């Protein structure tokens, strides 16, 4: 009996670690939210400036924000998402980060 307990504990720990590893591998998203006052051209300029997107891509994302109320404008590591989100907030856009579903 004495040898069984550590074995069970080890198995459980491994399972938990594996689940955590999977959890952190899911990418993070930078989300920009619509508002009724920001001019569309300003949103395009901000996307181009912060992400280096082409005019077409920035315009497409802006239209997604406008029509759907939000758009994922960048995905990747949490730290980079947080940094981009802060840059967007500094430029006056409503932005948050979230982990991919």
């Amino acid at each position, binding site marked *: 009996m004495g040898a069984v307990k550590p074995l069970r504990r080890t198995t459980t720990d491994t399972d938990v670690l594996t689940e955590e590893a999977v959890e952190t591998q899911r990418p993070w998203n930078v989300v920009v939210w619509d508002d009724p*006052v920001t001019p569309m051209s300003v949103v395009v300029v901000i996307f181009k400036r912060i992400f280096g997107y082409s005019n077409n891509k920035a315009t497409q994302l802006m239209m997604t924000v406008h029509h759907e109320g939000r758009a994922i404008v960048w995905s990747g590591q949490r730290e980079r998402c947080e940094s981009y989100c802060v840059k967007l907030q500094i430029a006056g856009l409503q932005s948050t980060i979230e982990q991919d579903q």
Partner: protein
Amino acid sequence: MVGRHRLFVRRRDGRIEVRLNDLGRSVAREAFGHVVAAERDPEHEWHTLLNAPIDPGRDQDDPLSILNRQNEISTNAELAVVTLNEEFLNDAEAWAWLATLQVALRSTAQAHGLMSDEKLAACDEELLNYIHTLQQLLFELADCF
């Protein structure tokens, strides 16, 4: 402030010419001043608006990110204030104007609860005129980038 000519013009040397009259500059001065004050004064009605959550799924955001945001918003607003009377802006100065005007525009709308088309349409005329003026400044400045 609004005439037949454009309010901001990108020159061939890369600088942006500011063609605002006194009224236009006074609107910009008011907007920039509010942003500077809001970052410095925790009691300012915009202060919490400038500290929106980064990750709403967490109880608290990374303090370094919060500090970075505060510093950058303040730096932009202060650069905009000190260049308020300039005839020409370089790229960094023009970006500081754009970011600060946009922060002021969205904070104004949020502070007055105007975050839907219906509420915006129903707000009083003086406030709506102010918002439209900020939008026009932003629209024309964005055209230079």
